[in-house]
Structures are given as C-alpha cells and as structure tokens.
C-alpha cells in the first residue's frame, strides 16, 4: 500500500488555504489527527533559578509559531501514548513523524 504522506515533498504556501486534517504515524499505521488530543508545543522545562517574568512566560505564553513546530499529541482513541512530531503549522504538513529525524531546512 502506498501513501501520499511524502515527507520529501516540500511544503509551499498555498494561496487558497491549507490542509487542516493530517495523519500521524503510529505503530498501527497512519492515523487521522482526530484520534489524538493536542499536547502543545515542546518547550524546555523551567530552570529552578528562573525569574518571576520567566516563570510567568513559561506558564502562560507560547511561541505559537507560524512555521516549524515540535509538538506533542496523545493518541486518546488508540494506543493511549504520547507522540512527538514536527509539523509546519502553516501547511499542516508533518515534517517529521514520531520517531523520525527532522532535517533542518527541509521546510
């Protein structure tokens, strides 16, 4: 069975809109994102000596990039495990599926 999830394909900015439904690779195959709960962007933990401002930023602020983001998804309807992947938030193309290495510059 072949798949159109061609990681080598370069995403472009589409003038008419973007895909909002994508697939995440699990040990049981590619699954629609609707089977998952979003776990937010991956961020480094707050260091113990952080200032108040850094703590507030850590709790309440997110980068929310329009671009390449490393993020977490929980497969609530299936394996019930966490997956980390890299996705371009503008095009919803998954640049690195869980377990794959993300190549800088492949975006």
């Amino acid at each position, binding site marked *: 069975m072949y798949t159109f999830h061609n990681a080598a394909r370069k995403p472009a900015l589409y003038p008419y809109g973007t895909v909002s439904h994508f697939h995440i690779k699990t040990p049981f195959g590619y699954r629609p994102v609707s089977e998952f709960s979003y*776990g937010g962007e991956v961020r480094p933990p*707050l260091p113990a000596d952080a200032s108040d401002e850094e703590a507030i930023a*850590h*709790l309440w602020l997110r980068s929310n990039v329009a671009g390449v983001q490393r993020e977490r998804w929980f497969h609530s309807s299936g394996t019930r495990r966490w997956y980390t992947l890299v996705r371009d938030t503008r095009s919803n193309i998954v640049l690195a599926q869980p377990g794959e290495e993300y190549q800088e510059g492949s975006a």
Partner: protein
Amino acid sequence: MSIQFEGREVPIQPGDTLASALYRDGVRVFSRSFKYHRPRGLYCLSGDCPNCLVTVDGEVNVRACMCKAEDGQTVSRQNAWPSVDKDALNIIDKGHFLMPVGFYYKAGIKPKFAWPMAEGVIRRVAGLGFSDKSDAPRDIDRINRHPDVLVIGAGVAGLSAALAAAEGGRRVMVIDEQAAPGDRVAQGPTKQQIDALAATAAQNPGIEILPGTAAIGIYEGPMVLALRTDQVLHIHPQAIVIASGGMEIHRIFPGNDLPGVFMARGAARLAGAHGVKPGDVAVVWAETQEAVEHARTLQAAGVRVACVVTAPGVDAQGVGERQVEGEVVEAKGKKKVQGAIVRAAGGATEEVACDLLAVGAEIQQNMHLPRLAYDLPCVLAGDAALPGSALDVAAQSGTQAGQAAAQGLPLYVNPPATEPRPCGTAGYVCICEDVSVAEVEQAIDEGFESAELLKRYTTVTMGPCQGRLCADQLRAIAHRKTPAEAARVAAPTTLRPPVRPIKMEQAAAGARHHIERHTPLHQKHLEMGASTLWAGPWKRIFSYGDMQSEYEAVRHRVGVIDVGTLGKFLLAGPDVVEFLERIYPMRVADLEPGRLRYGLMLEEGGVIIDDGTVCALEGGAFYCTVTTSGAERLESWMLDWKEAWGLDVFVVNQTASLAAVNVAGPHARDLLEKLTDDPIDKEAFPYLRHRRITVNGVSCLAIRLGFVGELAYELHFPAAHAVEMWDAILEAGKEWDIRPFGLDAQRLLRLEKGHIIISQDTDFETTPWKVSMDWAVKLDKPEFVGKAALIRAQRRTPREMLVPWKMDPGMAAPPEGSTVTIGGSLAGRVTSSKMSYVLGHPVGLAWVTSEHATEGGTITIGGAPATIGGHAFYDPEGVKLRA
C-alpha cells in the same frame, strides 16, 4: 407504467426521467423562479440549473432531469399559486423594479412593524419547495469506503482513468451521478465509447463502479462526501481523479431564461437520449463544432432546424435550412420562446421564428470539484482538464491521469485565475436567485465593486447551481465595470462544499449524540427510580426520588452510594515512589502499606486540578483515586510527566475494571460485619487506612475516608461483581432501613463538613493556599509539580479565600452563585449553598476577600446576613469519621 402529475396520469417509458416523461406529455413550464415567479422550462438537463425542481412523493426540490421516472410516483411543481401554469404571484415580476437586489436592507425599516409583516409575506412567496415540517428525519445509512484511487465521473476520461489505475495494481472506485454510465449522452460515438469502456471496467475485479452516487464535497484527508438515494458515503481514497466533465457556458442575453431556451447539450439529450422532440422549429447557436452535432441530432429527431448561427471557425455545412455566421442577441416571447434575434457578422439583425433556441456555447470545466481539491492528491481528466476537447484527447488524458494516480500524485494546486470571458450586457445572470445584469451593475454602482461583495449582496452563485452557471459571469461584469483593477474585483469567489444541496438528515448521517459512560450498576439504579445527571462524560445518580430521606439515612442509620465513576489508577514500577513524590504536593514515600493520604493534584502554576486519595499497597505499588471527570485527562497528564522525567513507572487506568461503592453511616460497620469475616473494628481498621477484606465472597480493597462525615467504608472490587455486591449490601442493610443515596444528598453531606468539590468550589486560579489547605502541601519536598509557583504565591496574600459560612435557622439557603457583599461593596461569591437538615440552618462555601475572611466575621449574601465559620459545621472534631 405511469406517474401521477398534479392530478392526472402521465405515461412513462423505460429510461425516462421525470423531465423527459413530462415534456413528452406536453409540460413546458416546469417551475416558477425563486423571486419573481418567472416561468421556467428545461434548460441544462444535466442537474446543474434550478429550472426543473419538482416535488416527488413528498420530497421537495428534486431535479426532474436527474430523477428516474418510476411507476406510481406522485409529482408536482413548486413555488406558485394557484398553479405553476397560471401563477398569480407572477405579478411580482411586473413590479420587479420595486424590489431590486438588497431591497430588504433598505425598505421596511420604518415603521418598525413593517419588516416583520413584510418578512412573513416574502417567506411565503419566495423560495422553492415547501417541506413537510411534520416529517421526522430519517436515519440515513453512512458508510466509509477506502479505495486506493477514486475516479469521479464515469465518462470516457473517467473510465479510461479507472482502467489505467487498475492496470497499475490499484483498487479503483468510480462514482457517477447518473443512474448508469453514459445515461445522459445521446446516441453517437461518445456513447458508444462509454458503453465499451464501461463493459470492460465491469469485468475488471479491481474496479468498482457506483452509479447514482454524486460527489458533493472534497475535504482534507482526502475525504470525498458522496450522496446516494438512501446512503451517504465517506470515501477515503489515496488519490482522486476528477473527470466530472464540462458544461456549456450560460450565455446571457435578454430572454435567456424563457422556456424553450435550452443548452444545446440538453436539447440533444432530450432528443437523442430520450427520444423526445424539444420543439418543432429550432434556431441553434453553434459556438462550437460540437453544437453542430447537436443540431444534427435535433434534425434526426424530427425538429426543423430553421437556422444555425455559427461562431467564426465553426462549419455547419449541410445542417439546418440556413447557416448564418454571427450570434444570437435576444430571445423573444412572453411565456415561451417565439423567436430569436440573430445578428450576423456584418451587423444586420433579423428575427427568426422558432419555439426552440438551442445555445451551444463554449464548454467550460465543471469547476466545483477541482476547486475544492486544492492541496490534495488529485488530478483532472477529460473535459474537467481540457474543456471541449475531442474524444480521443479526453480518453488519453484519462489514461494518463489514471497512471499518475496509480503511482502517487503530487498535491493539486489551483491554476491561477484567468480573466473571465466577456459576458452579455442584459439578461438574467443568476437564474437561481433571479438576478439580472442590470441589478448586478446597480449593486456595483452602490459600491459593492468586487465579486466577493457582489456575491454576498446580490446572492448570485448562492442558489442550487452554486455558481456553475453564473460565477464566471459575475466576475466578468465586475471586471467590465472596473477594468483597471481585475485582481481586486474579479478574483474567483471562494467555493465551499457541499456543491449540491444536502439535506440535514444526510449531513447528520453517522453522527452520534452524547456518549454516556455508565457504571455496571447503572441499570440497577434506573430500576430503583433514580434520576441521573452528567458528571463529565459519565451519567451519575442524582437521587432516588427523596433526597432528604437518603440524607437522613446516612446521618442516622446507613446509606450506600455508587462511586464507580471515580478515576482509579494502579501505579507501580521501580520509580513509582519518586514519581508520586513529584506528582503530588504532599509526602508519599512515608506511607506504609495499609496507609493512605488525601492528595491534591496541582499543575505547574500551583493551581488545583484534581483531588483524591493515595493508598500504599503491599509490594511497593500504589492505588490512587481521582475525581470522576478527571480520570481520562489525568491519565494522559501523568504519562506526559512520566516521559518528561524519564521515570520507569507503570500507570494503569482501572476506572472501568473496578466497581466502587461507599457504605456510610453510624451502622456502616454493623452492616459490613454481616458480610465479612475479616476484622473491621476500630483497632484493626482505623480511619484513613485501607485493608484487603472479603465482602460477600468477593475480595475488596476497603478504604476508610471521611468525605460525607460519617463512619464509612469504600469498597473497590472487580466490576463483574457489582450488581451482586449492591444487592447484598441493600439486603444486609434492611434491618436499619438502608437507603441508596445519590449526588444530591452527597453534596449536602460533604458541605456540612466543609469539604470542597473541585471546579464547583475551586476555579482556574485556586491554589491550596486559597482554600486553607496548607496542610496538604509539603514545601520542604525537593521537587513536585507546582512547587515553584506555590512558593512565589506565598509572597503575597491571596486576593480572596474560600470560607465556610452559615446563616441563622429559619432563613432560606441562598442560590449558588449569589454575590457576597460587605458593607455594601462586592466582596465575593457563593460556590455551594444548601439547607442543612441536621443543623437546621443554611450552610455553604464562598469566596470572600482576604481581609474579611476571618472566622466569626459577618458577610451579607443576597441581602441576608451570614457568619463565617471555622472548618466544619457538623461534627467539627471528626468523632464520627474516626469511629
């Protein structure tokens, strides 16, 4: 065979659609238009225009040209009074200048009563069919399909693509709106080729052809939504070939919407595929060579083709009585076509008498599905890719598309918008919504210059055709009026699915109402007359009919509650102690087997997100409970932290595999001693301990907690034994008149003890400091979630504190949510409030500004005075819990 049509019988022949059968019987006016009630006749015969919408067997807005005629159907026309043939409401057309586009934005505003009256009238006279509101929605079958390649359209290109893709080893599904491939094609080379291809495809085991299946939307996934008569398909292909064909452009000229004006393909269809003469004397406007073939088909059917009007380059030698190079500029007639005004290339005009004007305009791609397929693995074939191309070109493009689909397609990108073709200066642009060129131009003069604004203001493209006929024309008119700014005013308008009308019951096919989670005792509770309520995704028991007697049973005798909805987790593994020490703000490491502790769960900001108990089991494992609505979320939350810390721990969600019931009241021990031989007296089994005991023959984890303030044993055991355990407890409790109790009673019981309920008494800012639970936090622990935030929070006094309060006997319990005032100023709000039966006065919890939140202080709730209490009002020493 026959159908019933407006009170008379109309014969039907095999292969008839309702349109062909009715036309053969002499029906010429098929509907009255949406707004002006203009008479409308057959036009496209391909299901794209609104003219032939009829009511069939009670179902409204059925396209007569697409609906197979079947013996016994009842058919009637729509939107006219008293009849479609003699529609009195046509008077609106005479007064059309009073109701230009958007008139309802300007008229009927003053006086105020004018609009509701006008709206009522407009709703009655405008529109299409009337649906029967008493009709209940049917349960429509919805099914998912997963072909490798989906081909939309079973014409020459589509079938060629299917065969090529199947040859490439893919599983192919072909869908087509028509009842059979080639159904709407007149006899001729095209039909022959379709029939041949369809026969070959039918033999191929890798190809499935689904006729009568219309693709009405393409979504991300990709997912193609398709409708059949009684079924909705969600098709999930890997690649899509769109071979949905093309259609003639809707030419605009005065009289272009009269009955008798046909698209040439439609007239040929009627004559060639159904054998029905569309008229006696025809003028054929042949912009394309294809149209000349249609003229031939009409002639062969016995129509006298008086004149063929050709565009430059079209050869009509030998067809029709005369050939004129030029164009048709007007159709004349009152309720039907009586003549066509032809302007020859030189400029001379003449009127040619006819009762049929077949407009063979340039072919445009059916642009709906291609425009929805952007960013998806899709390729176009046939007329959809190269409109108006010859048969062999179409077949070849189909084959290439099929091969590409079999190998894996790149994502489809919409081609850049081309300039719209020039459009006529007078006539009906949008025949769905009755909008003429003049009205569009007037709207532009009012300032709605761009196609997107015009679309919204005039409603052009918003009717059943969804722009198939009129989208390009709208752009052309906008461009013509503002030629210097094509990019701004004439960009293609946004297209959204569905591209054909869909009924609400079809859209709802496969959807589900709320999913209820039940404990194994749910049925039992219902049999006992319980009322339920939602607790997160669970249904819990509110009461069994008499809250006060349930409550009194617990306070004075014994009661039992089903707490099976609680989240239950088994935690084990080499790092389990370290894990729990970090997850919980209180100490866990010092709990020996048999001991338990109440545990808050905090998130990184120090805010309480849940609470429950932690029991230390034999063998180094722990058993943790959390609130009903928390379990699902906390499982993923704990697994996330486990990964973040890299700890070797197992988190096993046992919420559904274990049932749990709580036996509470002064006689709880007496009752249980009837069911167990294990020692459960105060010495063997003190408060805040858990023991493994056998109750009614079932091994249980028994936990002594104090949520409701009485002696209580909470039993956790395998869910398969739930019903027998419940029955045994009720039986054993009979001697004390045991009552099962629900959440209504439980809420009062816990409130008398000042116990909080997360998210009722707490909110997204509540730290343990604000609810006086400092005792539940051990800041000297090295690390736990929320520690840093709690230390920071300690630097300031909280703005408000949660405090228990009471009122004097004889007062009514204020509603939950009431405001708290002190000296006339706002000082907080009530989160819980109930009348306490045992104490004889109202009690509750409230947020109060810190400086006033002292025991003994007075506050005002809803105008009535209340006193702030200490911790619990009932049994403050906790003697009963510790019995």
